[in-house]
């Protein structure tokens, strides 16, 4: 039983991926976690987590069949915080090339493409990209107005430094149309990809699994719960 003041997060259950570890992370941090596939509960949630492991196309079918897509749009209209994890981040995009093209939620405009799986000198790299990797903060645009308006401490990166390690399991990457949506980048061979996507406000997504990324990963959930 949590108190009224504990931040709540609803974890969307659409039959794909292990939600237990996310739920445990939220509870460990003192939040309240609820796992649900109910469209009405999703639409009226305080905070939403869209998890996901598996194929993009199948995930969209599952979300549509359960009426979850519309519930997510209703939720977003209230400008409440949404966090996509791994495939859940990719689902936020306009479309994915995975067995596709397949249409996504189109909350962030851009597409999802396959990792090249090559080094810079064209040697083969293992795909999926599985394991620990660092995130780096992209160079900020040389634009005084933008710089003035953006403070990383107001994002899910509060308390996390460039070069921190996170745990990845993925074969596809997000390419947002607007570079300002790239909150953090990572490198896998010749691919420099967006590892955290953010509208610097309520919409966020992580390509890695924060619930498997030790202390830094917990900090992401902590920020999501208490700082957004």
């Amino acid at each position: 039983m949590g108190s009224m003041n504990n931040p709540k997060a609803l974890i969307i259950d659409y039959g794909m991926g292990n939600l237990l570890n996310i739920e445990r992370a939220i509870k460990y941090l003192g939040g309240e976690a609820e796992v649900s596939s109910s469209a009405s509960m999703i639409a009226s949630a305080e905070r939403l987590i869209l998890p996901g492991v598996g194929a993009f196309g199948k995930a969209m079918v599952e979300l549509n069949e359960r009426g979850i897509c519309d519930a997510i749009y209703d939720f977003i209209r209230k400008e409440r915080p949404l966090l996509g994890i791994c495939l859940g981040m990719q689902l936020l995009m306009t479309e994915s090339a995975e067995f596709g093209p397949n249409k996504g939620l189109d909350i962030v405009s851009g597409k999802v493409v396959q990792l090249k799986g090559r080094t810079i000198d064209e040697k083969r790299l293992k795909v999926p990209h599985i394991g620990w990797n660092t995130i780096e903060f992209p160079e900020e645009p040389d634009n005084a107005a933008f710089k003035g308006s953006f403070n990383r401490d107001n994002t899910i990166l509060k308390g996390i430094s460039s070069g921190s390690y996170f745990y990845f399991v993925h074969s596809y990457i997000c390419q947002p149309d607007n570079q300002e949506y790239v909150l953090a980048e990572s490198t896998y061979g010749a691919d420099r990809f967006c590892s955290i996507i953010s509208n610097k406000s309520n919409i966020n997504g992580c390509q890695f699994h924060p619930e498997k990324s030790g202390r830094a990963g917990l900090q992401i959930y902590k920020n999501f719960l208490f700082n957004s």
Partner: protein
Amino acid sequence: MAKYIRIIPRLDIKGPNLVKGIHLEGLRVLGKPWDFALKYYKGGADELIYIDAVASLYGRNNLAEIVEKTSQNIFIPFTVGGGVRSLDDIGRLLRAGADKVAINTAAVHNPDLIYESAKVFGSQCIVASIQAKLINNRYEAFTDNGRELTGKEVTEWARQVVDLGAGEILLTSIDNEGTGLGYDIELIRQIAGLVSVPVVACGGCGRYEHMLDAIVKGNADAVCAASIFHYHSLGSKVDTNQFKDEGNIDFLKLNRGEFNFMKEKISPTGIKDIKNSLIKAGVKCRV
């Protein structure tokens, strides 16, 4: 781009206890696995591996409970194996909080289990556990913790499990396991050079230099060790009453800090110290 090498404590489980043996025989109770797991998580382990040391022998499967208890407060990848026989077993362990499941005996008897489980759960969570022993200059694959010869030659078997969809190989040298004399570098080198999936080196680690050899000479993607971590984290005396129903606790009754009988071979070392040494030697590690 050099890869990040993973440092993985391996916890062998018997009943509810963490155990350690020599050549996988003569198991000795060291404590409760979740206490050690939490220490390793906090100490900077990149992953954890739990293996139910006797599950295959006695046909039991009580790991899910221990996994559930352990993963409450541990937020790094967690591989679990021992006695895994079916898709149901795999599903149960994944639902209890495991990220990957290691399969050995059942895969040898029914290689299709690897194919089926990779299709259902994804290759990224299926680990083929291969136990190897050098016999007449040939690495032979074993099951049941080194008791049963399978008749499969290790390189051939490694190639087969990867073709079937295994996402990782946990490669244990039965000859070296529990000796503290170092990994079987030749074994690791052969398999790591052969397959496209990560190879986790296991068996024989007694000191940090052995890990460096497995990484640099063997080309391992990850190194797994038990004794050097367990003996390092053994601290204060424990209440041996909570272990009275389980196995050989002579070691616990002695002051656990005194393990001179192993000191010649094992240099107990914490994960942070190992990583710092590896980084100095030019290996990339998460810190």
